């Protein structure tokens, strides 16, 4: 009887703690949402109402109707999508080389790739700005796509190399013996087998590009090329902030990421942890 009571008590305690943690973890999401459906007077009322008294989608309507937000959204979509395609392609080729070949300097190159994940952006951003300026890449999609892919590639190479290790080599070997070329073996056997891993890596790259702020801020100066994070920052004026637009825009910006994350989370977590956890 006492053991029973103790077990129930610890169960209650566990769920209580879990609820607290979830509240902490999700609160900024929840608060962003609640604020985004509040009319202006409620947002700026001295007495804070946790739940909107008269919920409205006015913030969303005017966000899309009156601001450049749709443009920012489209820009972000183009850049993040192109970045993903480019970075995934480059990373797959590199990961395949690291995983399936033993060649001089392989170890050194892998260490260099790992090293590049640790260089501070602040060190690269000024010279990149000057290089981009001389190459006329400022205010272009190409410039941001290049910068974003290169930033995501080193980590992606590590993730994909990890995923490739889980694809058995026997199938490839059989295909090669049957007369397939390396490229055919890669396209027909390896890639289909590691598709979940590639999807997870793609989502990682997409998220990192979608959320990137500093490069997007420095390498763009006109609204027509601005991305979502920089666009959202534009709602912060010197003296006042349009919290209605900002929170509505925040919801529209983060919801796609949440959906993508849930689609691939299992493999994404596997890929992220592969680098630091002994298997």
């Amino acid at each position: 009887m006492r053991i029973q009571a103790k077990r129930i008590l610890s169960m209650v305690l566990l769920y209580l703690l879990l609820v607290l943690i979830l509240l902490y973890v999700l609160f900024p999401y929840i608060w962003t949402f609640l604020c985004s459906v509040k009319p202006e007077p409620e947002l700026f009322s001295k007495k804070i109402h946790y739940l909107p008294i008269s919920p409205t989608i006015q913030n969303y309507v005017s966000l899309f109707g009156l601001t450049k937000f749709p443009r920012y959204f489209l820009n972000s979509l183009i850049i993040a999508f192109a970045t993903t395609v480019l970075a995934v392609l480059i990373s797959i080729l590199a990961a395949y080389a690291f995983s399936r070949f033993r060649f001089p300097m392989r170890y050194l190159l892998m260490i260099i790739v790992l090293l590049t994940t640790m260089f501070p952006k602040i060190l690269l951003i000024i010279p990149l700005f000057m290089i981009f300026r001389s190459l006329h890449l400022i205010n272009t999609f190409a410039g941001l796509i290049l910068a974003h892919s290169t930033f995501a590639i080193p980590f992606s190479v590590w993730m994909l190399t990890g995923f490739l290790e889980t694809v058995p080599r026997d199938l490839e070997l059989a295909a090669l013996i049957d007369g397939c070329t390396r490229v055919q073996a890669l396209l027909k056997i390896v890639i289909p087998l590691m598709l979940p891993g590639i999807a997870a890596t793609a989502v990682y790259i997409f998220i990192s590009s979608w959320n990137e702020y500093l490069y997007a801020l420095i390498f763009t100066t006109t609204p027509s090329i601005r991305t979502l994070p920089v666009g959202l920052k534009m709602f912060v004026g010197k003296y006042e902030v349009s919290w209605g637009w900002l929170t509505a825009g925040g919801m529209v910006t983060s919801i796609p990421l949440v959906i993508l994350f849930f689609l691939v989370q299992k493999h994404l977590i596997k890929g992220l942890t592969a680098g630091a956890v002994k298997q």
Partner: protein
Amino acid sequence: MHKYIPKKRGVYPYLLLLPLLLALILIIFYPILYSVYLSFNHYVLTTPSEIGFSGIENYVKILGDEVFWRSLRRTGMWIFWTIGFELLFGLMIAWLLDRKFPGRGIVRSLVLLPWVFPSILTGLMWVWMLDDTYGIINDFLVKVRLIDSYIPWLSLAGTALYGIIAAQVWHGTPFFVIMILAAMQGIPKELYEAARIDGANKWQEYWYITWPHILPTVLITTLLRTIWTASYVEIIEIMTGGGPGESTLTLPVYAFRRAYSYLDFGYSAALSLALVGMLSGLVWAYLRMMKMSRVEIL
């Protein structure tokens, strides 16, 4: 032993690596060299006529720059509290989630969501939540009587850095949770069963079984996060821009401000390289640890 497909050596792997190397050279290595070059030059964009080689002048200037020394100390505080809390929360949450209970899968995924929240939004939402008139955190703290009146957290020199740390801890904790949880799941369950038979209590189990097993992961993750957090500009730039005064000016933010507001590219490059120099010890330790625990891929 050798699991790879044997094949005569050739240019094949290098061909596959070519796009990667080109991208890295253009977007990372060349800019780094350029940074080194800039750091040995007097290079202020507003006075183009004075641009020119200046030897180690920028580095000498750093040594006598009081703002640099203060920003360095601030960077230390920023790393210590941010990483400290992220690690603590990471350990606690991972410990809670590493057990069987109904709904475990969904809770685990939800806990990771701050990680995908854009840093710009993290910064701005915490600014809004910490607001001194409409902020819900002030409202809450007054209601539970921890404070008497609203505090302008981000406008006070004494609290601004901690306001940003709170936001960053929220954003960064999931990374620790993911890593530690993955390490905990790799521990063979038999070890716990054996310990239970021997009469070990929960704390002993954690201390003698869990902790030694997750320690390498904890160290690697802490090193990696420390390197990233030390050079992190975005969230500080977004929330306070280094202010009020210079109370949230960490070293990378100082370097960024030097370039962005003063267009002093030479000095900014020298500051960034000083940061990299100081982090290189950690990077070396990280690579050592990776080498020890990740032999299968390397």
